[in-house]
């Protein structure tokens, strides 16, 4: 789904990323790479195919837009380093024309020096590009004239129908000052969020992005 936002063109992709056409930037949040391996290392059974799906989804979304920059809005890696890191390194090396960048999140505890050989810059502070400011956590005070894109929440919005039906779906949630992205990674779960009348909410269902009535 393509939307106009602050005079910018944004593509909301059902694999849970946003492509910003004017700047040729793809941004995604909360990949939690290596989470399955982290669990398996601790003796907790998690299907290892999850890891493959994370990379193939990232691959699909990159091939769709061919961005020049890919921006990770925090929680790129789930925990300390493990074998998934090597796969990630190889993945990044496949795209020499793309700059991958990381805005640090609370789960990103891997030594920042390890990102140097991959040419991935790390931002410990929110990153400003044009009218937007990118962060992992929602910003408490968004600077004036800037709009905040962030992750961290893993938002799931509850929809209510007639006859007391309800359903919870991952979503892009645009508020007046900030937008929270759905978690990109598999094996991440949903946290219930609520909306206000002035918000715009786009849910992801059956491989499509759908705007819901407020």
């Amino acid at each position: 789904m393509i939307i106009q936002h602050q005079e910018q063109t944004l593509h909301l992709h059902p694999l849970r990323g946003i492509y910003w056409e004017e700047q040729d930037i793809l941004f995604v949040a909360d990949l939690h790479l290596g989470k399955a391996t982290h669990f398996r290392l601790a003796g907790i059974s998690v299907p290892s195919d999850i890891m493959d799906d994370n990379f193939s989804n990232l691959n699909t979304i990159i091939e769709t837009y061919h961005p020049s920059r890919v921006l990770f809005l925090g929680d790129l890696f789930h925990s300390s380093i493990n074998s998934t890191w090597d796969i990630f390194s190889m993945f990044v090396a496949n795209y020499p024309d793309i700059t991958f960048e990381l805005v640090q999140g609370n789960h990103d505890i891997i030594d920042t020096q390890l990102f140097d050989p991959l040419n991935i810059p790390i931002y410990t502070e929110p990153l400003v590009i044009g009218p937007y400011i990118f962060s992992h956590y929602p910003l408490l005070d968004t600077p004036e004239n800037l709009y905040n894109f962030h992750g961290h929440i893993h938002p799931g919005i509850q929809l209510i129908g007639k006859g007391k039906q309800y359903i919870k779906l991952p979503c892009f949630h645009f508020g007046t000052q900030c937008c929270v992205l759905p978690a990109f990674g598999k094996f991440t779960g949903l946290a219930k969020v609520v909306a206000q009348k002035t918000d715009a909410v786009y849910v992801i269902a059956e491989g499509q992005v759908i705007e819901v009535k407020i």
Partner: protein
Amino acid sequence: MTRSEQLHIATQWFSDQGWEPFKFQTDTWKRYWQGKSGIVNAATGSGKTYSLIIPILIEFLSEHRGKDRLPIQNGLQAIWITPIKALAKEIQSSAQRAANDLGIEWDIGIRTGDTSSSDRAKQKKNPPELLITTPESLHLMIAQRHHEDIFKNIKVLVADEWHELVGSKRGVQVELALSRLKAIRPQLKIWGISATLGNMEEAASILFGHYDQQPDWKIIKSSIKKKIKIQTILPDEIDKLPWAGHLGLHLMDKVVDVIISSKTTLLFTNTRNQCERWYQTILEYYPDFAGIMAMHHSAMDRSQREWVEQSLHEGKLQLVVCTSSLDLGVDFRPVETVIQVGSPKGVARFLQRAGRSGHRPGAESVIYFVPTHSLELLESAALRRAIQRNNIESRKPYIRSFDVLAQYLVTLSLSDGFMPDQIFSEVRKTFAFSSISDEEWNWVLAFIHSGGAALDAYDEYNRVGIVNGRYHIQNKSAATRHRMSIGTIVGDTTMEVKYLKGGRIGQVEERFISALSPGDVFMFTGKALEIVKVRNMEVRVRASKKKTTRTPSWGGGRMQFSSQLSEELRHQISLIYSGDYKSIELKMLAPLITLQQSRSHIPSENEFLVEYFKDREGYHLIMYPYEGRFVNEGLSTLIAYRISQQMSISFSIAMNDYGFELLSDKEIDVDRIITHSIFTTDGLMDDISRSANEVEMARRKFRDIASIAGLVFKGFPGAEKRTKHLQSSSQLFFDMFSEYEPNNLLILQAYEEVMYFQLEEDRMRSTLERIQNQNIIITRPNKATPFAFPIMVDRMRETVTSESLQDRIQKMRIKLIE
């Protein structure tokens, strides 16, 4: 020593106490001394403990007869399993008293989750002769290195309160532990003590497993019967009772009258939230109760509960408002009166609670029943008839619980490791796993060794390793997590509530706290508490003077009508139909019945009532199978699914123990669609599987499974960050396995548990068969009837739909912040 000498010593000891042994006691002694196994079928407070303690002690005397003095430090001779930690002390003192009198210098020890690690170490070095323990702690003993040495001389295992254990996964734990003990010590005697169950024979055969070619066990029944009287607390007029509701507070004044006229009263509520609310309200209207009233439920901190139990013993309390947390356990002699608020849902539970009063032999137990809404008056009459007819529930055993098996195998891998072939042959002798196939066994082995999948070169799965064919745990932190998780069956994530200074108050669910912020006040354990800060699964609070009614609720533990009670309830409705209003409760209900009759209909025994009407919420289709809420839930989904096969429609479903409602925004041609064919048993299993709710139900069942199988780790205070990164929800695991490994046995187990324990497929089938032989009566009331009302206000809603997700989303809206 001859049998008569043994009997003489036992009888002599009894007469020294001023007692005379009952026949079931002497029968048990004799059978025990023959080296045989059995079950003592006797109620609490009937001398069941001495039916086994005595022969165990005298067996030891016989063995060492003629010696100058009895040997000391004999190693473990007997294990006594109790499901309730609180009972351990009472059993210990009973046993100690008899041992002292008989001149036996046994060490009689207790090992439960509360036993300190230094005491555990002492027990390991010098095992007590008689050990009183829980199923979990017994497994922890099996997790010790060289556990075979500890058990090598053991004579008997006694499973006390077997009726409680048999319908739970802790029962499976006992079965598995027994399979190990029987392998170490084939001549081990197995004894159970159980209250009456509908399936007594089956319950016994579960305990005895398949260890012997020719099973030789016997049920020894106590003939002591307790008289029970049910007294319904009635409103002055039926109008005083609401049509729906579950709190029952409108009858509080009458309840307090009963409490005041009695020395000590236990007031049983069905949920912890209800318990808190009753406590608060009594205190508000009757402040004189301050100091002589207490509360007891499982979310309260242990030390507080123990204080309440102690005060009960000492007769210091006039009233304890409690939940099922006081169903079991030691007898509180001062208790004179028992009050049950709302439906007890089952005959056995009601009897158990009634038995908490009237301890003198031959005394009548009186239980007061407080209906929380008008139709519950019917239940009072139904319960009375059930007790008269001795119509007691069965306990369905857990079988093929692969979560418990996986946990047990990891436990064994902690000790000296295990050889799979040997353990497989042991496990197959249990009742629970007698049907396990080679494939299933191999799957469980693979699950603990490789995480279920085939290990490839890059895989780093790390839990249980194999060295020379022996399964050993490799991962130290996994071992620690495992030890901590045995016995902690966590449901929803709970948070510890503590005072700022550190005093523990109890646990509340995370979802309750997440809706509050610092400064907010809530009621818990009868106190107003202000949240100061929330951190790391801990809520720090301070006492507040503010007034609030905000009280936590806890999920889980929802119970349904047993089939016995359902049957009795249908009988009461048929009595109404035939105008037989003999009982006081039915007389009281008469005005309501007249209203039901004028708005709709009262079904006779061969009629099935369906009501259909429209209001601003939509179209309500209501049916009354009277089969318990989970069975009604299953039936409602099935009917919703079958209707949705004929037209594109979404339903929201509500149900209670009496019936269910299908609510939709589209009209249905009920005369055409609601016929006998929609209640057919043809294709039942397939239709259940296709209806969406089965997934939701399985997802809920998976909570326990995931935690028992060691998938979900709750973390602990002070855990390092990398450990916190291991926290996850069972829901997420459920979704993940469903997507990537649909044949995962734990997922299949969740579905089996849904079919067997929740939907009770056999009960659904027999209900549908019953409806096939009934006339379907469809009425069109112009508004909700007295029968429909309690169902419609039910807040736990389910959905069934045949519309596409996108169509549904187009019709839905987001709930906004108000």
